[in-house]
Structures are given as structure tokens and as C-alpha cells.
């Protein structure tokens, strides 16, 4: 069930109403059933895959807690192998097999193993990582093993964040399922405001811009350098709004019921450096990699700067691979990691803050970070490496040709307006947080804000029910 469908709107209101009507002791069951229904609305059979990891990790958590020494580690490893195994099978089998086929072909051999034909279970990377964070935290002693199977299943399946995050930590969410939630006006309104802004990002900005980006990126050989450049910049805005729009709707819907999910984005397009941008982007994933991969790795290399920097690249490579089984994602990850490393080396060696006033550091930093990320996103969006390299070449050489404006050309202005609206609002949120619209103290301004946003959604939003980009991960 897509957040941007009428079905979901109905689903959300019914489940929320039932949630507050039911006594506390039955609410977890309602949420679990609702989450199952939500997930099975995509491809029902894949609930079995999800069920398998839930059963494995539920028992792994208990065994880890009960055991000591090497046995404890063994149970953790078993849980990780099961999770990564499922992820690897569904997500990477065909990718690995295709590369083996390609390699064997170079030596005139044929690969006897054929690709498997199935659709990737929706949100697999998200709930697998969330499940792994549970067993790791139990192993580390930061979380008690959950004895109530239903509550544990709900931790993995909680419908607002089931298919595209935020990737929660057990310490943040499990205890909330035990707390009796009361309907709170302020919390409900606050949640709905976040949902409203999420819909704005998705329908007005992301889906609107996607029309242009798809037209250009699906036929990159027919477009000029400036068209590809504009499409690349717009894609950066699109993917941010698509994904953060989803996160906002997830966080907002959970908040209405009284649950606080972690913040997943903090205006990354205004990051003042490449590194800062990544600290603001998909926070739940990158903090996962930081906590469970980078920190353990770097413990043994405290003074070895080269090692630490290489671990950064490793983290980004893994994050690229997490996104998808395609060389474009791996290049995207490598490019992103290297850009962070280059920036850090530059700052350490040159120390530009000594020579450049702070205000210019912020302006240049924001622009450079924006452009570098947009360029890296090119690999994220391109259909394959060949297309990506062609796009890079066309942009760098400014391949001649007119600027494609879409069909009809007037639509081009919608793309620009959509991106500009988003950037203006985020600039206010970042630098003039005291200027508020839907959070204004004045009831007139606040209501005017709601109506303006809803009118803009109705007038220039795209209502074709397109999927969220991150659902494929």
C-alpha cells in the first residue's frame, strides 16, 4: 500500500481511530495485524520471508541473552548470517551471477547457472537492517531480549516505517509499544503537520520533477549537456523529496498514535560540506553503518589516519551496495566516500577556514556540497554505467543542443517552481527558523499555511500514485 494512495489515507484513519478506541493491551495486536495487511498489500507471499527473519531474530535475541562467551557470539553470527543470507539471496544473487556470466564470457565459457526470476521483497534492506540492529544491541547488552513475540514482530513490522524506514533501533521503539498511549491533541496535530509536509515533498516536488528526470535519463543519448545537467540537479532534489517525504509521512503517522520515530533527514541539500551533507542524509542508515561497522572497525585504528579514511570509503561502498545490486550504486558509493575523504584531506592540509571568512565558507561549502552530491546522484539514477559515463561526458563537454523543457514546454516551469519552493522553505527553516508558517503562533497565519500547502498540492501535485524510489531497496 502506497502512502500516496487514497487507500492509505483510509487505512490510516481507520487504524488510528481503532487504536485509540481499543484498550491498551490489544493495541499491539491491532498494529501488528494492520502492519501485516499493509505489507501483504504489495506481494502477500513475501510475508513468509519477513516472518522467517522475525522468528530467527526473536530466538537469536533470547539465546544471546541467555548465553555467555563464545556461544553468545555464535548466536549473533547465526542471526547475522541468516539476515544477510536472505538479503544476499534476494538482492544480490542475479547481480553476482550476471557478473560471473560476464567474466566467463571473456574466456569463452558459459555460465550453467541461470538468473532467478522474482521480484525483490519490498523494503527488504530496511527491515533486515532493523532486525540486525536488534540482535546486535541485545549482544552488546543495550537492549533486553524481547520475550513477547508479537511485540518483537511489531518492532520489525511497524507499518509506518516497515518498507522504507527510518531504520529504528530497539532501544528507541520497543519500550514505546509497552507505554499506554493517550490521544494528545498537540501530538496529533504535530504529526499531521509532518505528514502534510511529507505529501508536499512527494507529490509537488518529487513526483513533479520525476516527469522531467525520467524523460531525460531514460533517453540520455538524445539530450544536450545542459539538459542532462539540469536533469541531474533536479534529480538530487527529487530523490531527497521522494525519500524524505516518505520518512516524514512515516514519522508523522506514527506520531499521531503517540510513537516517536527517529529523524531521518535534516535538510541535506543545505549541508555546508560534503561530510555534513551525509550527516543530514538518511540518518538512520548512516548512523547504523557508523555504529555497527565503522566504530568497531576504527577501534583498532585510532591513530592510523589512512586506515580510518579507507574505512570511510568502505562504509560508503557498503551503503552503495545496500541500495542496489548494480555497478552504478557501487560507483555512487565509492564516489561519495572518496568525496568525503578528499574534502577531509583538503580541510586538514589547506585549512581554508584560516583564509576565507565564515560566511563565504558556508556559501561555497553549500554550493560545492550540493554540486558534488548532484554529480554522485547521476550514478544513482543512470540505468547503467554506460549511460552514466555518457551523461558525465555530455555534461563535462557541454554537448551541444537545446535545453529540453518537457512536453509541453510550459511544464518546465513547474519543475523549477517545485524545486525553488522546496529550497526556499528549507532556507527559511535552516537560517530563519523563527519565521514559521504552519507552526506560527498566529492561528490566522497557521491556517493560511495549511490551506496554501493543500491548494498547491491540489494544483500542481502529481497524483499518479507513483512508487517511492526507496521502496526498491
Amino acid at each position, binding site marked *: 500500500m502506497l502512502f500516496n494512495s*487514497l487507500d492509505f489515507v483510509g487505512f490510516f484513519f481507520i487504524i488510528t481511530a481503532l487504536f*485509540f*478506541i481499543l484498550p491498551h493491551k490489544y493495541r499491539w495486536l491491532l498494529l501488528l495485524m494492520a502492519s501485516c495487511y499493509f505489507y501483504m498489500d504489495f506481494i502477500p507471499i513475501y510475508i513468509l520471508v519477513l516472518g522467517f527473519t522475525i522468528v530467527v531474530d526473536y530466538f537469536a535475541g533470547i539465546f544471546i541473552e541467555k548465553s555467555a562467551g563464545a556461544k553468545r557470539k555464535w548466536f549473533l553470527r547465526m542471526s547475522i548470517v541468516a539476515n544477510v543470507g536472505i538479503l544476499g539471496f534476494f538482492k544480490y544473487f542475479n547481480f553476482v551471477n550476471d557478473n560471473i556470466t560476464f567474466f566467463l564470457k571473456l574466456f569463452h565459457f558459459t555460465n550453467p547457472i541461470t538468473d532467478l526470476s522474482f521480484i525483490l521483497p519490498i523494503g527488504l534492506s530496511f527491515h533486515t537492517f532493523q532486525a540486525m540492529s536488534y540482535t546486535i544491541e541485545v549482544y552488546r547488552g543495550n537492549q533486553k531480549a524481547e520475550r513477547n513475540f508479537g511485540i518483537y514482530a511489531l518492532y520489525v513490522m511497524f507499518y509506518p516505517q516497515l518498507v522504507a524506514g527510518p531504520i529504528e533501533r530497539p532501544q528507541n521503539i520497543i519500550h514505546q509499544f509497552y507505554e499506554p498511549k*493517550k*490521544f*494528545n*491533541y498537540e501530538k*496529533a*496535530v504535530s504529526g499531521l503537520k509532518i505528514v502534510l509536509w511529507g505529501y508536499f515533498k512527494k507529490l509537488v516536488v518529487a513526483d513533479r520533477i520525476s516527469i522531467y528526470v525520467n524523460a531525460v535519463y531514460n*533517453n540520455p*543519448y*538524445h539530450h544536450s549537456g545542459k539538459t542532462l545537467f539540469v536533469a541531474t540537479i533536479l534529480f538530487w532534489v527529487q530523490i531527497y523529496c521522494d525519500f524524505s517525504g516518505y520518512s516524514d509521512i512515516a514519522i508523522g503517522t506514527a506520531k499521531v498514535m503517540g510513537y516517536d520515530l527517529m529523524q531521518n533527514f535534516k535538510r541535506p541539500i543545505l549541508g555546508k560540506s560534503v561530510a555534513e551533507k551525509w550527516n543530514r542524509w538518511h540518518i538512520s542508515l548512516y548512523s547504523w553503518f557508523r555504529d555497527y561497522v565503522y566504530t568497531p572497525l576504527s577501534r583498532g585504528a585510532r591513530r592510523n589516519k589512512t586506515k580510518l579514511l579507507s574505512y570511510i570509503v568502505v562504509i560508503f561502498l557498503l551503503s552503495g551496495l545496500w541500495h542496489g545490486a548494480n555497478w552504478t550504486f557501487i560507483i555512487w558509493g565509492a564516489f561519495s566516500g572518496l568525496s568525503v575523504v578528499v574534502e577531509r584531506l583538503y580541510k586538514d592540509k589547506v585549512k581554508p577556514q584560516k583564509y576565507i571568512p565564515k560566511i563565504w565558507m558556508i556559501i561555497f561549502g553549500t554550493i560545492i556540497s550540493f554540486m558534488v552530491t548532484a554529480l554522485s546522484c547521476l550514478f544513482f539514477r543512470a540505468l547503467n554505467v554506460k549511460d552514466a559515463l555518457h551523461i558525465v561526458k555530455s555534461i563535462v563537454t557541454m554537448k*551541444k*543542443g*537545446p535545453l529540453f523543457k518537457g*512536453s*509541453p*514546454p*510550459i*511544464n518546465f*516551469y*513547474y519543475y523549477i517552481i517545485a524545486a525553488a519552493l522546496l529550497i526556499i522553505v528549507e532556507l527559511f527553516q535552516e537560517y530563519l527558523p523563527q519565521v514559521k508558517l504552519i507552526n506560527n503562533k498566529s492561528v490566522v497565519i497557521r*491556517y493560511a499555511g*495549511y*490551506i496554501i500547502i*493543500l*491548494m498547491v498540492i*491540489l*494544483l*500542481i*501535485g*502529481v*497524483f*499518479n500514485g507513483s512508487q517511492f524510489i526507496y521502496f526498491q531497496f
Partner: protein
Amino acid sequence: MTKEEVKHVGKFFKKFIILLVLLFITDRIIGTLLENAYKNAPQGDIKTFAHSITDPTEDIFIYGSSRAVHGYDTRVFTDSLALSCFNSGRENSNILYHTSILDEMLKKHKPKVVVLDVSARELTWRSAENSKMVLASMILPYIHSDTSFANIARQLFPEELMKAQVSKIYAYNSMVLSLAVGKRKFNKDKNLNGYVPIHGTKITGKIPSFTDESDQTDSFAKQKFEEFVRTVKENNIRLYVIQSPLYVKHFNTTVSLDTIRSILNRYNEPFWDYGFDTAFYKKELFYDNLHLNSVGSELFSKKLVSDIKSDLEKNDPEILNHPQ
């Protein structure tokens, strides 16, 4: 629920209802303003559509996608045949759109000749879906005043109809710029009875392929094409189904074209294929690989009109003798 919760719920619903009322009022006010702007649109797609369904008078009507809009010069038709001509083509549309417009037009006016430009992917699912959206954007503003449009919407896009019934401004989604600023400012090209010439060429690099072997015909689009042909025949209107010139890799046929040919055969109607006519397979005649530029469209229109004239002289001379 505790007393405090009930208080919170009451407060929430009270404010929610206030918001809905304000939203409803704003929606109706802005919707009415947009409705007026829509009905008085100076030119462009909206005007072309409105003319085709509200006050059609011309002898010849041309239907098709953007390839028709930019490829069929109405002046050539009028000058050579002494018959008035209107180009009802619409970007991104296919037979779903054309059939609906034709049905509406015939309620008010019966032309003498109908020219239908088809693409080699006319009957695919993708074309049908695009066309549905284009049709939705055009007819949703009419659903309150015209039941036949409401019926089309109910059949083709019931969800869109429901949204447009709830919100008045939703019918004008994605049109606000055209309506607020006026199409003229964004489109320097003239609109000549629906024909919009485009100038020069932007073709560079290799000649691309247009067809896709995985294409399959959409059964609904197929049914609509047959309905289009049948309707034209039943009204004794002369029909010409055309594939206009392309500048793409040569192909012999496609599933859409095969289906079109077979339906036309059944109705004993010809299919005129200028797709790869050597007279037009020249880069300088095209704006891009699918669209003739102003020079190309004039040349093509002259050739087509000459062929139509010969055909009419031979098979239906009455049309040429008695222009309206």
C-alpha cells in the same frame, strides 16, 4: 478513553472541521476563478480542445498526437481543397483521446473528412495510459456541466473523477500556469486552426530506434480504434488513417500497425503509410526524430492533400464540389 482524551479528541475534530470548511470555501473560490480562466483560454491545447467539442464547424478534422499537431498544416488543406480544416491533435494522446473527442464533436457537427494520424505504437498500453491522463486533464473541468464527459471519466478514470467531484480546483491540476499567465507567453509558435508549426532541427547523432519488440497491443485501445473507424463510417464521413513521416531507424511494421491494418481491412478502409517515404526521410525536414518541422510539415501536407484530392475526385467528388 479518559475524560482528558475525550477533550483532546473534541478539540481535534472541532479544529479539523474548521479547516475543512475553510478549505472547501477556498477551493470553490479559486476553482471558480480557474473555471472562468479555462473557458476564456486565449489559445493553445485548451482552446483547441474546447473548439473541437463545443463549436466545431470545419469540413476536415485532423486527429492525432503531437505528430499531428506539428505535422499537418491546416492552411495547405484549406488552400488546396477549398475546404475548411481544423487540427484537433493533442500532445501525448492516442486513440482513447481521439475517439472521445470525435464522439463529442459528432453531437454538434458532422465534418466531411476525418484524417487520423496514428503512431507505430498507437495501441500500446503505455500510449493508452498517457492518453488517459491527457484526456482527464482536458475533460475534468467539464464533468459538472456535461454528463457525457462525466460518463467517460467514470469509465476511464473513476478515481480522478471522484477527486474532481470533491475538489473544484483539482480539475485544473497542472494547468494553473497556462491559465494564469496565458499560453501565448510560453509558446511563441502560432496556432493555426490547431496546427502548431515548429521550426529548425535539433537532431544530432545517430538515428534512434522507435519501436520496441516487447510492445503489446492494449485491448481497450484496440477496441477504441475500431470504435473510431466504425463511428466515422456510420456517419458517412470520409476517413484517412495515416502514418506520417518519421526520422528513426527503419522498421517494416509493429504490432500496433498490424492491428490497425487488420481492422481497417475489415471495414474496407485504406491505410496510407508515409512513415519512411523517401521524399521526407531527410534530417532537415524534422524538428526531432518524430516531429516534422514547419518546412517538412508543409511538404508532407502538400503531398497528403494531393493524394486525398485524387482519392476524392475518384471516389467521392461530391465533397469537393460542395464546400460548406
